[in-house]
């Protein structure tokens, strides 16, 4: 009887381990994990939650900075991709977690760079810490059920002069055509998110 119970518990544990989906970790997100809902204010103080901003086919959360020259080098590409894929059901959402950038600066930068998507203010870098975001620009592509599909760089070339791999667009095109995304995680040099010091 005892042997049977132990065997049952072992099988139960094994099944649970194999079928358990990836969880959202406190210090970052794993590909395949479902992100928790969040609410943040935009630059006008209006609160938005993830579900209200979600696209029919997916959402891109992109960490940005008003000051970062790497973001400046990417602004046209970000705007082009956001516009091109909005019609395909993928919405962009910008996040600013920089403690050194006040609201006035962020708003004026938004106007200067011509972003056509909401910019949410992550005061105290709560969301950045939860998701493990550390650099700008840094993108997280979620599917329509808020499952993380791709995380990292937009493409392989910060300068934009020698782009050989369009990581984000390739991920979109694969997902939209029902294919598996080959490169789910990349990294690129960028500006540190200027986080508020922990009290």
């Amino acid at each position, binding site marked *: 009887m005892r042997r049977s119970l132990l065997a049952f518990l072992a099988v139960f544990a094994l099944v649970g381990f194999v079928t358990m989906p990836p969880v959202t970790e406190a210090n970052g997100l794993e590909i395949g994990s479902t992100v928790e809902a969040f609410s943040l204010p935009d630059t006008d103080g209006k609160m938005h939650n993830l579900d209200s901003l979600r696209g029919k086919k997916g959402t891109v959360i992109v960490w940005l900075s008003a000051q970062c020259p790497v973001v400046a080098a990417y602004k046209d590409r970000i705007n082009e991709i956001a516009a091109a894929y909005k019609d395909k059901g993928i919405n962009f959402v910008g996040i600013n977690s920089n403690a050194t950038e006040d609201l006035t600066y962020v708003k004026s930068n938004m106007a200067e760079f011509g972003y056509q998507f909401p910019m949410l203010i992550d005061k105290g870098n709560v969301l950045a810490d939860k998701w493990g975001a550390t650099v700008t620009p840094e993108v997280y592509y979620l599917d329509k059920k808020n499952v993380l599909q791709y995380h990292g760089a937009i493409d*392989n070339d910060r300068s934009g*002069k020698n782009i050989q791999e369009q990581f984000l667009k390739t991920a979109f095109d694969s997902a939209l055509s029902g294919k598996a995304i080959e490169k789910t995680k990349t990294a690129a040099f960028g500006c*540190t998110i200027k986080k508020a010091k922990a009290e």
Partner: protein
Amino acid sequence: MKAISLGWLFALVCVVSADAQRRNPPPKPPAADLPKVTKIDQVRYAALIKPGTRPLLINFWATWCVPCREEFPDLVKINNEYKGKIDFITISLDFEEELNTTVPQFLKEMKADMPTYLLVTPDESAAIAMISKEWAGALPLTVLFAPSGESVFFHQGVVKPAELKAAIDKLIQ
């Protein structure tokens, strides 16, 4: 007929070459009094980040990175203090056109003489992963490798000199 065809081919080559030069102009030559910054590719980079017989301190930075510029004077002091006891290199992630201008100009202003390299690679993901899988590429980054290859100090953001010096002292005792 053959001469005319060759002439057209030559002209085509000249046009294509000129267009490539226009789109990707080579860096301007360095001024004589500026420190040398060496452009490196992924292969050279992989060799440089392996420590030799001394501890290896590496700082990743860029002139466009405000905290990188802020911490640089402290790094210069550390370089001067530990010269001969550790190997200290810096790797700039400035754009290639800054190789012989902005980067060496900054080094001159800082009175920095540690060897400096400018990395140009089509695969930044791989370059970043070679240092640490925990690094997303944010600058500045300071990392200290023991001669064994073990990473004993890893810091993203402005470095705290006292903490870095403590890590170095532990290795060289």
